[in-house]
Protein backbone atom coordinates (compact mmCIF):
# COMPACT_ATOMS: atom_id res chain seq x y z
CA UNK A 1 0.00 0.00 0.00
CA UNK A 2 2.77 2.37 1.06
CA UNK A 3 4.72 1.40 -2.05
CA UNK A 4 1.70 2.12 -4.27
CA UNK A 5 1.32 5.58 -2.74
CA UNK A 6 5.00 6.39 -3.23
CA UNK A 7 4.90 5.14 -6.82
CA UNK A 8 1.77 7.09 -7.67
CA UNK A 9 3.26 10.22 -6.13
CA UNK A 10 6.56 9.74 -8.00
CA UNK A 11 4.76 9.20 -11.33
CA UNK A 12 2.56 12.23 -10.70
CA UNK A 13 5.64 14.33 -9.87
CA UNK A 14 7.36 13.27 -13.12
CA UNK A 15 4.15 13.98 -15.06
CA UNK A 16 3.87 17.43 -13.47
CA UNK A 17 7.54 18.32 -13.96
CA UNK A 18 7.10 20.08 -17.36
CA UNK A 19 4.55 22.40 -15.73
CA UNK A 20 6.72 23.47 -12.81
CA UNK A 21 10.37 22.89 -13.75
CA UNK A 22 12.51 24.79 -16.23
CA UNK A 23 12.80 23.36 -19.75
CA UNK A 24 16.46 22.48 -19.34
CA UNK A 25 15.76 20.15 -16.44
CA UNK A 26 12.68 18.75 -18.17
CA UNK A 27 14.84 17.81 -21.15
CA UNK A 28 17.25 16.03 -18.81
CA UNK A 29 14.36 13.79 -17.88
CA UNK A 30 14.32 12.34 -21.39
CA UNK A 31 17.60 10.43 -21.13
CA UNK A 32 16.61 9.49 -17.57
CA UNK A 33 13.41 7.83 -18.80
CA UNK A 34 15.23 6.09 -21.65
CA UNK A 35 17.94 4.78 -19.30
CA UNK A 36 15.32 3.77 -16.74
CA UNK A 37 13.82 1.43 -19.36
CA UNK A 38 17.30 0.06 -20.16
CA UNK A 39 18.03 -0.50 -16.48
CA UNK A 40 14.74 -2.23 -15.71
CA UNK A 41 15.88 -4.82 -18.22
CA UNK A 42 19.49 -4.92 -17.12
CA UNK A 43 18.44 -5.53 -13.54
CA UNK A 44 16.47 -8.62 -14.54
CA UNK A 45 19.87 -10.01 -15.43
CA UNK A 46 21.89 -8.33 -12.67
CA UNK A 47 19.67 -8.19 -9.60
CA UNK A 48 17.36 -11.13 -10.30
CA UNK A 49 19.61 -13.59 -12.15
CA UNK A 50 23.02 -12.67 -10.73
CA UNK A 51 24.76 -11.95 -14.05
CA UNK A 52 26.61 -8.67 -14.58
CA UNK A 53 26.74 -7.66 -18.23
CA UNK A 54 29.49 -5.27 -19.31
CA UNK A 55 28.23 -5.24 -22.87
CA UNK A 56 24.64 -4.08 -22.70
CA UNK A 57 25.49 -0.93 -24.63
CA UNK A 58 25.44 -3.29 -27.62
CA UNK A 59 21.66 -3.55 -27.33
CA UNK A 60 21.24 0.14 -26.49
CA UNK A 61 23.16 0.80 -29.70
CA UNK A 62 20.96 -1.58 -31.68
CA UNK A 63 17.86 0.25 -30.47
CA UNK A 64 19.28 3.70 -31.15
CA UNK A 65 20.53 2.80 -34.63
CA UNK A 66 17.21 1.09 -35.45
CA UNK A 67 15.49 4.45 -34.90
CA UNK A 68 18.13 6.25 -36.93
CA UNK A 69 18.02 3.76 -39.79
CA UNK A 70 14.24 3.64 -40.02
CA UNK A 71 13.73 7.41 -39.92
CA UNK A 72 16.63 8.38 -42.17
CA UNK A 73 16.59 5.49 -44.69
CA UNK A 74 12.87 4.76 -45.00
CA UNK A 75 9.67 6.77 -45.06
CA UNK A 76 8.49 5.28 -41.78
CA UNK A 77 8.32 7.77 -38.91
CA UNK A 78 6.10 5.99 -36.41
CA UNK A 79 7.81 5.71 -33.02
CA UNK A 80 5.63 2.69 -32.24
CA UNK A 81 7.07 0.90 -35.29
CA UNK A 82 10.58 1.99 -34.28
CA UNK A 83 10.16 0.65 -30.74
CA UNK A 84 8.74 -2.64 -31.97
CA UNK A 85 11.53 -3.01 -34.55
CA UNK A 86 14.15 -2.15 -31.90
CA UNK A 87 12.67 -4.75 -29.54
CA UNK A 88 12.64 -7.37 -32.29
CA UNK A 89 16.21 -6.64 -33.43
CA UNK A 90 17.41 -6.55 -29.82
CA UNK A 91 15.90 -10.00 -29.27
CA UNK A 92 17.29 -11.27 -32.57
CA UNK A 93 20.83 -10.17 -31.66
CA UNK A 94 20.53 -11.33 -28.05
CA UNK A 95 19.40 -14.84 -28.96
CA UNK A 96 22.77 -16.08 -30.32
CA UNK A 97 24.90 -13.78 -28.13
CA UNK A 98 23.01 -14.93 -25.05
CA UNK A 99 23.25 -18.58 -26.07
CA UNK A 100 27.04 -18.25 -25.90
CA UNK A 101 27.36 -15.93 -22.90
CA UNK A 102 24.95 -17.59 -20.45
CA UNK A 103 26.99 -20.79 -20.47
CA UNK A 104 29.48 -18.83 -18.38
CA UNK A 105 29.11 -16.93 -15.12
CA UNK A 106 30.84 -14.23 -13.11
CA UNK A 107 33.82 -12.54 -14.76
CA UNK A 108 33.72 -14.85 -17.80
CA UNK A 109 30.14 -13.84 -18.54
CA UNK A 110 31.05 -10.18 -18.03
CA UNK A 111 34.06 -10.38 -20.35
CA UNK A 112 32.13 -12.21 -23.06
CA UNK A 113 29.39 -9.58 -23.08
CA UNK A 114 32.08 -6.90 -23.17
CA UNK A 115 33.69 -8.62 -26.15
CA UNK A 116 30.44 -8.81 -28.11
CA UNK A 117 29.76 -5.17 -27.29
CA UNK A 118 33.15 -4.18 -28.70
CA UNK A 119 32.56 -6.22 -31.84
CA UNK A 120 29.35 -4.27 -32.45
CA UNK A 121 31.05 -0.97 -31.65
CA UNK A 122 33.73 -1.73 -34.25
CA UNK A 123 31.04 -2.69 -36.75
CA UNK A 124 29.32 0.68 -36.22
CA UNK A 125 32.63 2.48 -36.59
CA UNK A 126 33.94 0.68 -39.68
CA UNK A 127 30.84 -0.01 -41.78
CA UNK A 128 30.67 3.62 -42.72
CA UNK A 129 28.20 3.32 -45.62
CA UNK A 130 25.65 1.60 -43.46
CA UNK A 131 26.20 3.30 -40.11
CA UNK A 132 27.81 6.63 -40.87
CA UNK A 133 31.01 5.61 -39.07
CA UNK A 134 32.18 7.84 -36.25
CA UNK A 135 29.79 10.60 -37.33
CA UNK A 136 26.84 8.35 -36.71
CA UNK A 137 23.39 8.71 -38.23
CA UNK A 138 20.64 11.32 -37.94
CA UNK A 139 17.39 10.49 -36.21
CA UNK A 140 14.53 12.34 -37.81
CA UNK A 141 11.68 13.42 -35.61
CA UNK A 142 9.32 10.45 -35.23
CA UNK A 143 5.51 10.57 -35.28
CA UNK A 144 3.88 9.87 -31.93
CA UNK A 145 0.75 7.70 -31.96
CA UNK A 146 0.40 8.45 -35.67
CA UNK A 147 0.63 12.24 -35.22
CA UNK A 148 3.12 14.18 -37.30
CA UNK A 149 4.41 16.91 -35.00
CA UNK A 150 6.91 18.30 -37.52
CA UNK A 151 5.42 21.78 -37.30
CA UNK A 152 5.97 21.97 -33.54
CA UNK A 153 9.15 23.65 -32.30
CA UNK A 154 11.71 21.02 -31.27
CA UNK A 155 11.85 22.12 -27.63
CA UNK A 156 8.06 22.09 -27.38
CA UNK A 157 7.96 18.66 -29.05
CA UNK A 158 10.52 17.21 -26.66
CA UNK A 159 9.26 18.84 -23.47
CA UNK A 160 5.65 18.08 -24.36
CA UNK A 161 4.43 15.13 -26.42
CA UNK A 162 7.75 13.29 -26.50
CA UNK A 163 8.19 13.69 -22.76
CA UNK A 164 4.80 12.15 -22.00
CA UNK A 165 5.30 9.47 -24.62
CA UNK A 166 8.57 8.48 -22.93
CA UNK A 167 6.87 8.49 -19.55
CA UNK A 168 4.15 6.24 -20.95
CA UNK A 169 6.75 3.80 -22.30
CA UNK A 170 8.55 3.82 -18.94
CA UNK A 171 5.38 3.15 -16.96
CA UNK A 172 4.39 0.36 -19.34
CA UNK A 173 7.89 -1.15 -19.25
CA UNK A 174 7.94 -1.01 -15.44
CA UNK A 175 4.49 -2.61 -15.18
CA UNK A 176 5.50 -5.46 -17.51
CA UNK A 177 8.80 -5.99 -15.68
CA UNK A 178 7.01 -5.94 -12.32
CA UNK A 179 4.78 -8.72 -13.60
CA UNK A 180 7.77 -10.69 -14.89
CA UNK A 181 9.76 -10.56 -11.66
CA UNK A 182 6.69 -11.58 -9.65
CA UNK A 183 5.86 -14.47 -11.95
CA UNK A 184 6.91 -18.11 -11.61
CA UNK A 185 9.65 -17.24 -14.12
CA UNK A 186 10.96 -14.48 -11.83
CA UNK A 187 11.07 -16.90 -8.91
CA UNK A 188 13.05 -19.41 -10.98
CA UNK A 189 15.56 -16.67 -11.89
CA UNK A 190 16.08 -15.91 -8.20
CA UNK A 191 16.73 -19.58 -7.45
CA UNK A 192 19.45 -19.57 -10.12
CA UNK A 193 20.95 -16.36 -8.73
CA UNK A 194 21.07 -17.79 -5.20
CA UNK A 195 22.20 -21.35 -5.86
CA UNK A 196 22.33 -22.70 -9.44
CA UNK A 197 23.30 -26.20 -8.27
CA UNK A 198 20.26 -26.47 -6.05
CA UNK A 199 18.04 -24.87 -8.72
CA UNK A 200 19.06 -27.54 -11.22
CA UNK A 201 18.27 -30.36 -8.82
CA UNK A 202 14.79 -28.86 -8.58
CA UNK A 203 14.53 -29.11 -12.36
CA UNK A 204 15.24 -25.43 -13.14
CA UNK A 205 17.69 -25.29 -16.04
CA UNK A 206 20.12 -22.46 -15.27
CA UNK A 207 21.23 -21.99 -18.88
CA UNK A 208 17.71 -21.96 -20.28
CA UNK A 209 16.40 -19.40 -17.78
CA UNK A 210 19.51 -17.22 -17.98
CA UNK A 211 19.05 -17.12 -21.75
CA UNK A 212 15.46 -15.92 -21.42
CA UNK A 213 16.53 -13.26 -18.92
CA UNK A 214 19.30 -12.17 -21.26
CA UNK A 215 16.96 -11.82 -24.25
CA UNK A 216 14.32 -9.92 -22.24
CA UNK A 217 16.95 -7.56 -20.84
CA UNK A 218 18.24 -6.96 -24.37
CA UNK A 219 14.72 -6.08 -25.56
CA UNK A 220 14.47 -3.50 -22.77
CA UNK A 221 17.91 -2.12 -23.61
CA UNK A 222 16.98 -1.78 -27.28
CA UNK A 223 13.67 -0.03 -26.51
CA UNK A 224 15.47 2.35 -24.14
CA UNK A 225 18.14 2.91 -26.78
CA UNK A 226 15.49 3.81 -29.36
CA UNK A 227 14.16 6.46 -26.96
CA UNK A 228 17.63 8.00 -26.62
CA UNK A 229 17.90 9.03 -30.29
CA UNK A 230 15.12 11.59 -30.93
CA UNK A 231 16.14 14.11 -28.21
CA UNK A 232 19.66 14.50 -29.63
CA UNK A 233 18.64 13.93 -33.25
CA UNK A 234 21.74 11.86 -33.85
CA UNK A 235 23.22 8.54 -32.78
CA UNK A 236 26.90 7.57 -32.89
CA UNK A 237 29.07 4.56 -32.03
CA UNK A 238 29.89 5.78 -28.50
CA UNK A 239 26.42 4.54 -27.56
CA UNK A 240 27.77 1.01 -28.01
CA UNK A 241 31.20 1.66 -26.47
CA UNK A 242 32.25 -0.26 -23.38
CA UNK A 243 32.35 2.87 -21.19
CA UNK A 244 28.67 3.30 -21.92
CA UNK A 245 28.08 -0.26 -20.68
CA UNK A 246 30.07 0.73 -17.60
CA UNK A 247 27.83 3.76 -17.03
CA UNK A 248 24.76 1.55 -17.17
CA UNK A 249 26.21 -0.83 -14.59
CA UNK A 250 27.20 2.21 -12.48
CA UNK A 251 23.62 3.53 -12.55
CA UNK A 252 22.37 0.14 -11.37
CA UNK A 253 24.88 0.02 -8.49
CA UNK A 254 24.18 3.64 -7.59
CA UNK A 255 20.45 3.03 -7.27
CA UNK A 256 20.71 -0.47 -5.81
CA UNK A 257 20.28 -3.70 -7.76
CA UNK A 258 18.54 -5.48 -4.89
CA UNK A 259 15.44 -3.32 -5.29
CA UNK A 260 13.06 -3.25 -8.24
CA UNK A 261 13.12 0.55 -8.58
CA UNK A 262 16.72 0.94 -7.42
CA UNK A 263 18.18 1.18 -10.94
CA UNK A 264 15.48 3.69 -11.94
CA UNK A 265 16.52 5.91 -9.03
CA UNK A 266 20.14 5.30 -10.05
CA UNK A 267 19.43 6.57 -13.58
CA UNK A 268 17.74 9.71 -12.25
CA UNK A 269 20.55 10.57 -9.84
CA UNK A 270 23.23 9.73 -12.41
CA UNK A 271 21.78 12.00 -15.10
CA UNK A 272 21.33 15.01 -12.83
CA UNK A 273 24.56 14.45 -10.91
CA UNK A 274 26.51 14.13 -14.15
CA UNK A 275 24.98 17.35 -15.45
CA UNK A 276 25.79 19.18 -12.23
CA UNK A 277 29.35 17.87 -11.89
CA UNK A 278 30.13 18.58 -15.56
CA UNK A 279 29.02 22.15 -15.08
CA UNK A 280 31.36 22.57 -12.10
CA UNK A 281 34.52 20.60 -12.93
CA UNK A 282 35.92 19.35 -16.23
CA UNK A 283 36.99 16.00 -14.83
CA UNK A 284 33.55 14.62 -14.06
CA UNK A 285 34.71 11.01 -14.36
CA UNK A 286 37.09 11.62 -11.46
CA UNK A 287 34.18 12.63 -9.25
CA UNK A 288 32.05 9.76 -10.49
CA UNK A 289 34.83 7.29 -9.76
CA UNK A 290 34.93 8.52 -6.18
CA UNK A 291 31.14 8.29 -5.92
CA UNK A 292 31.18 4.73 -7.25
CA UNK A 293 33.88 3.72 -4.76
CA UNK A 294 31.90 5.32 -1.91
CA UNK A 295 28.71 3.53 -2.94
CA UNK A 296 30.40 0.13 -3.15
CA UNK A 297 32.18 0.57 0.20
CA UNK A 298 29.63 2.41 2.31
CA UNK A 299 26.29 1.64 0.67
CA UNK A 300 26.48 -1.65 -1.23
CA UNK A 301 22.67 -1.65 -1.34
CA UNK A 302 22.78 1.63 -3.29
CA UNK A 303 20.63 4.69 -2.70
CA UNK A 304 17.44 2.64 -2.58
CA UNK A 305 19.03 0.44 0.07
CA UNK A 306 19.76 3.54 2.14
CA UNK A 307 16.22 4.86 1.68
CA UNK A 308 14.64 1.54 2.63
CA UNK A 309 16.87 1.28 5.70
CA UNK A 310 15.98 4.81 6.76
CA UNK A 311 12.31 4.11 6.16
CA UNK A 312 12.47 0.99 8.33
CA UNK A 313 14.37 2.83 11.06
CA UNK A 314 11.78 5.62 11.04
CA UNK A 315 8.93 3.11 11.18
CA UNK A 316 10.47 1.12 14.03
Amino acid at each position, binding site marked *: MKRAVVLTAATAAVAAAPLVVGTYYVLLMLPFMAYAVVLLGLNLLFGYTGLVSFGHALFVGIGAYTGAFITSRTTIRSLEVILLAAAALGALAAAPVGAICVRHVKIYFGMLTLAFGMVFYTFLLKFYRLTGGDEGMPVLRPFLLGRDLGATAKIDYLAGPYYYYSLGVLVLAAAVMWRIV*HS*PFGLCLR*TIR*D*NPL*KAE*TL*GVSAIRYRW*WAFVISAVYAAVGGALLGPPTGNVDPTLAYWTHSGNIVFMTLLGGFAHFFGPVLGALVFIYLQDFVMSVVPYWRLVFGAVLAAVVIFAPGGLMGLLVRRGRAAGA
Partner: protein
Amino acid sequence: MILRAEGVRKVYGGFCALDGVSLDVREGEFLSIIGPNGAGKSTLVNLLTGVLRPTEGTVRFKDRDIAGIGPVALARLGLARSFQLVQVFPDLTVLETLQAAVVSRLGRGLRLFASLRGDREVQAGALEVAELFGLADRRDALARHLSQGDKKLLDVASAFALRPEVILLDEPTSGVSTADKTAVMEILVAAGRRIGLRAIVQVEHDMDIVFGYSDRIVALHQGRVLADGPPAAIRADERVLDMVIGRRGAG
Protein backbone atom coordinates in the same frame (compact mmCIF):
# COMPACT_ATOMS: atom_id res chain seq x y z
CA MET B 1 13.33 -52.43 -10.30
CA ILE B 2 12.93 -48.68 -10.34
CA LEU B 3 16.58 -47.76 -10.19
CA ARG B 4 19.39 -50.08 -11.19
CA ALA B 5 23.16 -49.77 -11.40
CA GLU B 6 24.79 -52.68 -13.18
CA GLY B 7 28.52 -53.42 -13.15
CA VAL B 8 29.32 -49.78 -12.57
CA ARG B 9 32.95 -48.79 -12.58
CA LYS B 10 34.24 -45.23 -12.17
CA VAL B 11 37.86 -44.31 -12.63
CA TYR B 12 39.32 -40.86 -11.89
CA GLY B 13 42.71 -40.66 -13.57
CA GLY B 14 44.48 -43.70 -12.17
CA PHE B 15 42.19 -44.08 -9.14
CA CYS B 16 39.29 -46.51 -9.27
CA ALA B 17 36.54 -45.08 -7.02
CA LEU B 18 33.95 -47.75 -7.87
CA ASP B 19 34.72 -51.18 -9.23
CA GLY B 20 31.90 -53.29 -10.64
CA VAL B 21 29.13 -52.14 -8.32
CA SER B 22 25.63 -53.47 -8.97
CA LEU B 23 22.67 -52.16 -7.04
CA ASP B 24 18.89 -52.49 -7.36
CA VAL B 25 16.37 -50.19 -5.76
CA ARG B 26 13.05 -51.99 -5.40
CA GLU B 27 9.48 -50.74 -5.22
CA GLY B 28 8.46 -49.53 -1.76
CA GLU B 29 11.79 -49.98 -0.02
CA PHE B 30 13.93 -47.78 2.16
CA LEU B 31 17.50 -48.53 1.12
CA SER B 32 20.57 -47.31 2.98
CA ILE B 33 24.06 -47.17 1.56
CA ILE B 34 26.79 -47.30 4.17
CA GLY B 35 30.54 -47.40 4.08
CA PRO B 36 33.64 -45.77 5.55
CA ASN B 37 35.11 -42.59 4.05
CA GLY B 38 36.56 -43.34 0.62
CA ALA B 39 34.29 -46.34 0.07
CA GLY B 40 32.77 -44.70 -3.03
CA LYS B 41 29.40 -43.60 -1.59
CA SER B 42 29.53 -40.07 -3.01
CA THR B 43 30.62 -41.36 -6.41
CA LEU B 44 27.77 -43.87 -6.38
CA VAL B 45 25.27 -41.15 -5.46
CA ASN B 46 26.54 -38.97 -8.29
CA LEU B 47 26.24 -41.88 -10.72
CA LEU B 48 22.73 -42.75 -9.52
CA THR B 49 21.65 -39.13 -9.96
CA GLY B 50 23.05 -38.74 -13.44
CA VAL B 51 25.68 -36.18 -12.42
CA LEU B 52 28.56 -38.49 -13.40
CA ARG B 53 28.86 -40.90 -16.29
CA PRO B 54 30.24 -44.32 -15.38
CA THR B 55 33.51 -45.43 -16.97
CA GLU B 56 31.89 -48.85 -17.41
CA GLY B 57 28.44 -50.24 -16.69
CA THR B 58 24.95 -48.78 -16.84
CA VAL B 59 22.60 -46.85 -14.60
CA ARG B 60 18.90 -47.11 -15.42
CA PHE B 61 15.92 -45.34 -13.89
CA LYS B 62 12.49 -46.63 -14.89
CA ASP B 63 14.21 -48.64 -17.64
CA ARG B 64 15.88 -45.58 -19.09
CA ASP B 65 19.62 -45.06 -19.27
CA ILE B 66 20.34 -42.01 -17.11
CA ALA B 67 24.13 -42.00 -17.30
CA GLY B 68 25.24 -38.37 -17.16
CA ILE B 69 21.82 -36.93 -18.11
CA GLY B 70 22.17 -34.22 -15.46
CA PRO B 71 20.03 -33.06 -12.56
CA VAL B 72 17.41 -31.11 -14.54
CA ALA B 73 16.37 -34.03 -16.74
CA LEU B 74 16.51 -36.41 -13.80
CA ALA B 75 14.24 -34.23 -11.67
CA ARG B 76 11.73 -34.24 -14.52
CA LEU B 77 11.95 -38.01 -14.76
CA GLY B 78 11.02 -38.29 -11.09
CA LEU B 79 14.28 -38.76 -9.21
CA ALA B 80 15.06 -36.08 -6.64
CA ARG B 81 18.02 -35.69 -4.35
CA SER B 82 19.28 -33.73 -1.40
CA PHE B 83 22.90 -33.00 -0.61
CA GLN B 84 25.26 -33.87 2.19
CA LEU B 85 26.25 -30.21 2.45
CA VAL B 86 23.04 -28.29 2.90
CA GLN B 87 21.84 -26.47 -0.22
CA VAL B 88 19.29 -23.68 0.10
CA PHE B 89 18.49 -20.39 -1.61
CA PRO B 90 19.78 -17.88 0.99
CA ASP B 91 17.62 -14.93 -0.12
CA LEU B 92 14.41 -16.86 -0.69
CA THR B 93 11.89 -17.51 2.04
CA VAL B 94 10.91 -21.01 3.10
CA LEU B 95 7.66 -20.73 1.15
CA GLU B 96 9.36 -19.31 -1.96
CA THR B 97 11.83 -22.20 -1.93
CA LEU B 98 9.01 -24.72 -1.87
CA GLN B 99 7.05 -22.72 -4.46
CA ALA B 100 10.04 -22.93 -6.80
CA ALA B 101 9.98 -26.72 -6.53
CA VAL B 102 6.22 -26.84 -7.13
CA VAL B 103 6.51 -24.44 -10.09
CA SER B 104 9.18 -26.70 -11.57
CA ARG B 105 7.09 -29.85 -10.98
CA LEU B 106 4.06 -28.30 -12.67
CA GLY B 107 6.20 -27.07 -15.59
CA ARG B 108 5.15 -23.45 -15.06
CA GLY B 109 8.60 -21.89 -14.84
CA LEU B 110 8.37 -20.13 -18.18
CA ARG B 111 5.10 -18.40 -17.39
CA LEU B 112 6.50 -14.90 -17.69
CA PHE B 113 3.36 -12.92 -17.11
CA ALA B 114 1.41 -15.13 -14.71
CA SER B 115 1.03 -14.08 -11.11
CA LEU B 116 2.88 -16.36 -8.72
CA ARG B 117 0.79 -15.12 -5.81
CA GLY B 118 -2.40 -15.84 -7.74
CA ASP B 119 -1.44 -19.41 -8.61
CA ARG B 120 -3.46 -21.33 -6.04
CA GLU B 121 -2.09 -24.73 -7.00
CA VAL B 122 1.49 -23.57 -6.44
CA GLN B 123 0.63 -21.80 -3.20
CA ALA B 124 -1.30 -24.77 -1.82
CA GLY B 125 1.36 -27.27 -2.91
CA ALA B 126 4.13 -25.30 -1.22
CA LEU B 127 2.15 -24.76 1.97
CA GLU B 128 1.26 -28.45 2.15
CA VAL B 129 4.95 -29.44 2.09
CA ALA B 130 5.83 -26.69 4.60
CA GLU B 131 3.21 -28.10 6.98
CA LEU B 132 4.35 -31.66 6.36
CA PHE B 133 7.90 -30.75 7.37
CA GLY B 134 6.90 -28.53 10.27
CA LEU B 135 8.17 -25.40 8.54
CA ALA B 136 4.84 -23.60 8.16
CA ASP B 137 5.43 -21.30 11.11
CA ARG B 138 8.68 -20.12 9.51
CA ARG B 139 7.25 -19.83 5.99
CA ASP B 140 8.23 -16.15 5.61
CA ALA B 141 11.72 -16.52 7.07
CA LEU B 142 14.64 -16.19 4.68
CA ALA B 143 16.51 -19.46 4.29
CA ARG B 144 19.76 -17.83 5.41
CA HIS B 145 18.16 -16.96 8.75
CA LEU B 146 17.16 -20.56 9.53
CA SER B 147 19.05 -22.78 11.94
CA GLN B 148 21.33 -25.39 10.38
CA GLY B 149 18.82 -28.12 11.19
CA ASP B 150 15.95 -26.20 9.58
CA LYS B 151 18.09 -25.49 6.51
CA LYS B 152 18.64 -29.23 6.16
CA LEU B 153 14.93 -29.84 6.57
CA LEU B 154 14.14 -27.20 3.94
CA ASP B 155 16.68 -28.73 1.55
CA VAL B 156 15.00 -32.12 1.89
CA ALA B 157 11.48 -30.62 1.87
CA SER B 158 12.14 -28.89 -1.45
CA ALA B 159 13.14 -32.23 -2.95
CA PHE B 160 9.89 -33.74 -1.64
CA ALA B 161 7.95 -30.80 -3.11
CA LEU B 162 8.91 -32.14 -6.53
CA ARG B 163 6.76 -35.19 -5.68
CA PRO B 164 9.39 -37.52 -7.08
CA GLU B 165 8.99 -41.27 -7.44
CA VAL B 166 12.39 -41.95 -5.89
CA ILE B 167 14.35 -39.71 -3.58
CA LEU B 168 18.04 -39.97 -2.81
CA LEU B 169 19.09 -38.40 0.46
CA ASP B 170 22.76 -37.82 1.11
CA GLU B 171 23.15 -37.84 4.89
CA PRO B 172 19.69 -36.42 5.63
CA THR B 173 20.42 -35.95 9.32
CA SER B 174 23.90 -34.45 9.10
CA GLY B 175 23.92 -31.08 10.84
CA VAL B 176 20.81 -32.07 12.81
CA SER B 177 21.21 -32.39 16.57
CA THR B 178 21.25 -35.96 17.88
CA ALA B 179 18.02 -35.32 19.76
CA ASP B 180 16.24 -34.20 16.58
CA LYS B 181 17.48 -36.93 14.23
CA THR B 182 14.68 -39.38 14.89
CA ALA B 183 12.08 -36.63 14.55
CA VAL B 184 13.54 -35.64 11.18
CA MET B 185 13.48 -39.24 9.98
CA GLU B 186 9.88 -39.67 11.11
CA ILE B 187 8.96 -36.58 9.12
CA LEU B 188 10.76 -37.94 6.06
CA VAL B 189 9.08 -41.32 6.21
CA ALA B 190 5.65 -39.78 6.81
CA ALA B 191 6.16 -37.32 3.96
CA GLY B 192 7.27 -40.16 1.69
CA ARG B 193 4.07 -42.06 2.41
CA ARG B 194 1.96 -38.96 1.92
CA ILE B 195 3.33 -38.15 -1.52
CA GLY B 196 3.43 -41.79 -2.61
CA LEU B 197 7.18 -42.23 -2.95
CA ARG B 198 8.12 -45.51 -4.60
CA ALA B 199 11.49 -45.74 -2.84
CA ILE B 200 13.85 -43.84 -0.58
CA VAL B 201 17.61 -44.24 -0.90
CA GLN B 202 19.83 -42.69 1.73
CA VAL B 203 23.54 -42.47 2.40
CA GLU B 204 24.00 -42.27 6.15
CA HIS B 205 26.69 -42.63 8.79
CA ASP B 206 24.44 -42.77 11.82
CA MET B 207 23.92 -46.50 12.39
CA ASP B 208 20.92 -45.97 14.70
CA ILE B 209 19.18 -44.23 11.79
CA VAL B 210 20.38 -46.81 9.27
CA PHE B 211 19.23 -49.85 11.27
CA GLY B 212 16.13 -48.12 12.58
CA TYR B 213 14.61 -47.22 9.22
CA SER B 214 16.09 -49.35 6.44
CA ASP B 215 14.43 -52.27 4.72
CA ARG B 216 17.73 -53.15 3.10
CA ILE B 217 21.34 -52.03 3.51
CA VAL B 218 24.16 -51.98 0.99
CA ALA B 219 27.64 -51.79 2.51
CA LEU B 220 30.43 -50.44 0.34
CA HIS B 221 34.12 -50.87 0.95
CA GLN B 222 36.97 -49.72 -1.26
CA GLY B 223 34.69 -49.21 -4.25
CA ARG B 224 32.99 -52.62 -4.06
CA VAL B 225 29.79 -53.98 -2.56
CA LEU B 226 30.79 -55.74 0.62
CA ALA B 227 27.31 -56.84 1.63
CA ASP B 228 23.72 -56.35 0.51
CA GLY B 229 20.79 -57.48 2.62
CA PRO B 230 18.23 -56.78 5.36
CA PRO B 231 19.43 -55.05 8.55
CA ALA B 232 19.57 -58.29 10.56
CA ALA B 233 21.85 -59.92 7.99
CA ILE B 234 24.10 -56.88 7.78
CA ARG B 235 24.34 -56.69 11.56
CA ALA B 236 25.44 -60.31 11.61
CA ASP B 237 28.01 -59.95 8.82
CA GLU B 238 31.47 -60.18 10.34
CA ARG B 239 33.19 -58.38 7.46
CA VAL B 240 30.74 -55.45 7.68
CA LEU B 241 31.26 -55.29 11.43
CA ASP B 242 35.03 -55.20 11.02
CA MET B 243 35.35 -52.93 8.01
CA VAL B 244 32.30 -50.64 8.05
CA ILE B 245 30.26 -50.46 11.23
CA GLY B 246 32.65 -51.45 13.98
CA ARG B 247 31.71 -53.74 16.86
CA ARG B 248 30.29 -50.89 18.97
CA GLY B 249 28.16 -49.55 16.10
CA ALA B 250 26.44 -52.91 15.69
CA GLY B 251 25.39 -52.88 19.33
